[in-house]
């Protein structure tokens, strides 16, 4: 017999899943944006550095 006598007590997990999906998507998006911003900043500083090198 399946040990499901008190499975009803864990039904709340099903209600948490949509919240976790939305929060997970937001965090993933935030991290990706931060990383893209950092990469952009890195690229522009490298470009700036190149100019300085040229002048030298």
């Amino acid at each position, binding site marked *: *017999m*399946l040990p*499901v*006598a*008190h*499975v*009803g*007590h864990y*039904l*709340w997990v*099903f*209600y*948490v*899943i*949509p*919240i976790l*999906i*939305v*929060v997970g*998507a*937001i965090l993933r*998006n*935030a991290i990706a944006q931060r990383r893209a911003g950092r990469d952009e900043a890195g690229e522009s500083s490298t470009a700036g550095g190149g100019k300085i090198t040229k002048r030298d």
Partner: protein
Amino acid sequence: MTLPVAHALASRQDLPIPAWLFAWAASIVLIVSFFALSAAWRKPQFEDEHRRPLGARLSTALLSLPAQILCGAIGVFLLGVAVYAGLRGTEAPDRNFALTFLFVTCWLGFPFFSAIFGDLFRPFNPWRAIGRAAGGAFAKLAGQRPAHLAYPERLGRWPAAVGLLAFVWIEVVYGRTSIVSVDIEPHAVAVAALVYSVYTLAMMAVFGVEKWCDRGEAFSVYFGMFGRLGIFGARDGSLYRRRPFSAATSWATVPGSAAVVIASIAATSFDGAQDGAFKDPIESLFNWFTDRGMALTTGLRLTDTIFMLATFGAVAAVYMLGVRGMRTVPGAPSFKQLRTGFAHTLIPIALAYLVAHYFSFFVFQEQAQFGYLLSDPLGTGHTDLFGTVANEVDYKLLSANAIWYVQVAALVIGHVIGLMLAHDRALVYWPDYRKATASQYWMLAVMVAFTCFGLYLLSVANG
């Protein structure tokens, strides 16, 4: 094959899909609404009420002094009947006019109808009527308007938030005499109403009638909050029609307004969870207290009070997390500004929770209110004022499934409106719609959380 499930899976509903799948579907509706809003809604629509005056004659008639006196007198009379019934009537809660009138007809009726038509409580507010009459009499006798102290603006609407929680506490904590039953005595309710009346009239004398009604009088603030969603309003002696929900955008500018709406959601949530989702933890803490020698009633009230305050804290924390998330978007105003600026987006959610939790209760109890309670307000069985004393409640009026679908619809619609108001406000703070959308990811999470939590509470309560 029958699975040996203990209890929770054996729901009284006969739904085609499990209840939790409704939470998933509701979340999808919210997510789709969110992207539809971000794609098509690029200018604020609710900051202006778009007032259109009603007919001058109708406006003058409804706001005339005799009409105000009549409405006020009706309010005072009904409060008097409720208090008298509580003091002199039967102690059987379901047979006494006082409980159903105060806790169902007023407590639920005013929010439901005010959310459609605008603030309906204001003209019938018995304390406002008495306060204004007393002020008028004083002015006539003394030859000058009564002087009032300046209201401490830092307090804002906090007195109303506390009053709101106190009212719900009386109903669901003080009135609960055992772990399984709510059995508040009409006499206790009548005494509480008298105490509250004295307190309210004293505060009106100190700070002024209108000021106290706007800031501290719990029922005026609470019902007025829902009234901001409605389509009618009054200003400068005339009635006007406005865009639905638009008056809500200016409601939360007073400090403590967020606490009022959070208290409303928390109170409904706690009432729904008390005998459902929170039943086991409440029992555990209650047993812990009683094992240490605490009296049963004290232990139960203390346990319930702790859980009620914890629910308030949890609802506030979810909202604050959403606000905190918005702060991460470039160009965001201060945390305080965001906290105040988005508080009104919780009003439709508070209404949705109210409808979802009490809609069926309201429909059933109003049959009693306009049936046997109207004809026999004291519940003595000796009077039949309107010949309706034999009318009983028809519990077959609504099926379990119909109730469930109304509950789901209320929660989904309420949260979509909340999302819409939040998106609209975000466009004020971030005129660039892309940033506004980015800020609202967090409110989407808040709305999905409240929707799923609400449906979970209902599914356990219905189970």
